């Protein structure tokens, strides 16, 4: 078809026309969209979760990419979302960098129209000693982060996706069945990626973005090396009612069985995320709701795990820093008392680490949990996923402005390098913290409480941590 058009139009020379004509059988084979069930796209995103939808939305709102055909594949049907009275038990802590991304395509405004709660202060403390660390911007005027429900975030992004309907097609109830990736499956003579869908349709695309979660089928099809392990821990989530006036503080206490955290959702509602042993999790899911509330209060308040050595050393250090350094040690606050639980809001899920050693290969890029998933103790998972979106959008924009194919590895490698420089230190830190606090050994307790205390005293270290965690 195309060859024939060129033969007709060719203004420069007939030699080219002739050569093209001789290539006609070949070109016809390479030409796509020969049947009704074959589609051609520039970018296909597999997985319409928060990160995948944000990726589609970010690409759709990019001026330089306006002529690119982007298709988002989402297994679930399109939902009619109405903000429910009750809060969902699945939430995210959104960092300022994430807010900036959501703002860039207008989704943040939509989320704020629904609901989200600012976090002005974070307090992290240890159950084995008195050591603690607090984070807050000066005078508590600026938000450290926002807590929003996953449903609300996704709805905010979906609304903004509707605004770019002409550029980004969302195919609901569609899932990739088979991905044929050049270099992995060399049987195809076309060097683009072929996606066979469960609906029987086929898409040929220059770039496939895997946003299909930690069990990513795109990653498996790309034969990328994966590091993974199980934490042998389970996380319990629940929606709690708290007695609090402002409720803008995020609380986290490290117990020997795992951290327990309470994140503010509204003036009187907080979200619980409690990491514990699978057995304990099973028990906590079964007990009556009053007993569960008692268990949560106990986890935040009890002093059974106190280690006498660590406590006395901690007190000694506090005295020193008070007298010599005049550091910021006096700001201990007490967490609010949990008064009740939203009925039926308890749920549990297993925790594990999955890290893809490479985030890209030619024509493939992984984002979000497909590339990296780890312990939720710092609430960084989704923020790193949104960080991937920001970075990949910028890299693709540059590639397109340089006339490159969006699937070009030379550019995708930039995305991988930039993201791994960011993600790997975060994973290392979280793994370190997870192991550091998952023990009862006195020397380690001593070490960590001194370390935490020291970090809390040294303002410049804290500022640096805040900067790292929020960027």
């Amino acid at each position: 078809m195309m060859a024939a058009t060129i033969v007709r139009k060719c203004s420069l020379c007939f030699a080219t026309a002739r050569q093209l004509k001789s290539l006609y059988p070949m070109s016809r084979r390479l030409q796509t969209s020969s049947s009704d069930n074959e589609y051609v796209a520039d970018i296909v995103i597999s997985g319409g979760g928060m990160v995948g939808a944000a990726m589609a939305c970010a690409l759709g709102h990019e001026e330089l990419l306006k002529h690119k055909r982007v298709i988002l594949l989402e297994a679930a049907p399109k939902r009619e979302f109405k903000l429910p009275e009750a809060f969902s038990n699945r939430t995210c802590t959104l960092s300022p960098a994430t807010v900036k991304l959501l703002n860039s395509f207008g989704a943040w405004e939509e989320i704020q129209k629904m609901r989200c709660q600012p976090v002005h202060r974070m307090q992290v403390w240890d159950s084995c000693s008195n050591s603690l660390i607090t984070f807050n911007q000066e005078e508590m005027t600026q938000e450290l982060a926002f807590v929003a429900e996953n449903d609300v975030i996704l709805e905010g992004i979906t609304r903004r996706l509707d605004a770019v309907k002409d550029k980004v097609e969302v195919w609901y109830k569609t899932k990739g069945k088979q991905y044929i990736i050049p270099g992995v499956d060399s049987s195809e003579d076309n060097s683009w990626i072929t996606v066979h869908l469960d609906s029987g349709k086929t898409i040929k695309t220059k770039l496939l973005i895997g946003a299909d979660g930690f069990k990513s089928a795109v990653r498996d099809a790309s034969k990328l090396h994966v590091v993974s392990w199980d934490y042998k821990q389970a996380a319990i989530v629940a929606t709690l009612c708290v007695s609090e006036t402002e409720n803008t503080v995020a609380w986290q206490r490290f117990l020997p069985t795992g951290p327990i955290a309470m994140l503010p959702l509204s003036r009187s509602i907080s979200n619980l995320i409690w990491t514990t042993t699978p057995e304990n999790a099973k028990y906590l899911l079964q007990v009556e709701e009053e007993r569960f509330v008692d268990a949560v209060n106990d986890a935040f308040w009890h002093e059974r795990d106190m280690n006498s050595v660590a406590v006395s050393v901690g007190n000694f250090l506090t005295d020193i820093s008070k007298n010599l350094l005049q550091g910021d040690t006096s700001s201990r606050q007490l967490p609010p008392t949990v008064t009740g639980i939203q009925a039926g809001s308890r749920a549990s899920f297993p925790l594990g680490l999955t890290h893809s050693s490479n985030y890209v290969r030619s024509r493939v890029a992984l984002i979000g949990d497909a590339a990296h998933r780890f312990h939720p103790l710092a609430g960084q998972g989704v923020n790193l996923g949104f960080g991937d979106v920001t970075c990949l959008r910028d890299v693709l924009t540059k590639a397109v402005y340089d006339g490159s194919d969006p699937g070009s590895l030379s550019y995708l490698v930039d995305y991988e390098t930039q993201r791994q420089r960011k993600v790997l230190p975060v994973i290392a830190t979280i793994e370190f913290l997870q192991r550091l606090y998952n023990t009862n050994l006195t020397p380690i307790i001593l070490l960590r409480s001194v370390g935490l205390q020291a970090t809390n005293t040294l303002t410049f270290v804290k500022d640096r941590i805040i900067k790292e965690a929020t960027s």
Partner: protein
Amino acid sequence: MASVMSVCRRCLVGSLRKGLANAIKNTANRLNHSEWKNINAVLITKTEIYRNSSTISSERPVVKTTIDEEELRKFALLSQQWWDEQGEFEALHALNQIRIPFVRDGLLNQRGIPPLDITQPLAGFSVLDVGSGGGLLAEPLARLGAFVVGIDAVEENIKIAQIHLQQDHKIAGKVKYIEATVEDMLVTEEENFDAVVVSEVAEHVTDHAHFIECCCRLVKPGGSVFITTLNKTQASYFLGVLMAERVLHLLPAGTHDWNKFIPPEDLQYLLDKNGCVTRLVHGMCYNFLAKKWSWIQNTSINYAVHAVKIDSTKSGTTSESKFKNDSSST
């Protein structure tokens, strides 16, 4: 003419066996296969054919094709080799990250007004890519909106490039590949291009003076010549030839002949002689660990030149200041 016949970007990174020997083989092939000679003849006598355009279907010389399915498959495979970003042309693929912005920004500065459609910044420009090889440079320029003619003296490269071009229907109509040399082009296309891009080709040419003259004559007055090549210094011999070919094996041994390298001063002199004023000279540096090119001050190994042909019809030509902050030194 024969001297410039050796212009071949494939030689740059093609292996000695595949590149140099192939070039010789191809020349031999060309002598044997009269069909392809005919195609050259068609090219050169294009004007005559145009004249008879009313009776074109009957008058057009019939070119018998020797391409069959088997051969197509072979070229498709070769095309995959050319376009494998981690394959033997890795350094050339990486070079796109700086040479495309170099050409793009150079052309945008030349026009002086911002593009109407930012996704097609080069719309309206016609570009000649000398030594187009597998089309590594031609396709990105076409994607930016330019109309690109890629010429290569090696018949095989033309077919490889065309096969790859067919994959992207959005640009398939914007690129033409022709098996030709710059002299061939001069017959019909003198002063016909907004830009002539000679990337990684000049270091394979024996008669620089004649080659540059041809390139300059192909550019419209006010148009640009972009050249990237290797300097003729001791550093370029040790790093560009010995290290790259023998020690680090970035390129197959025998890719480059240091004697054919050209220093920027000589290149500028030649450009100047042909009415092209040099706007800027940048050094280029390849980090073989990161596999990235970057702009540097030092031009002793690789360098890029942007020259603009003086437009004698306009008085005072284009203002100097417009080009002061020219492009891409990021």
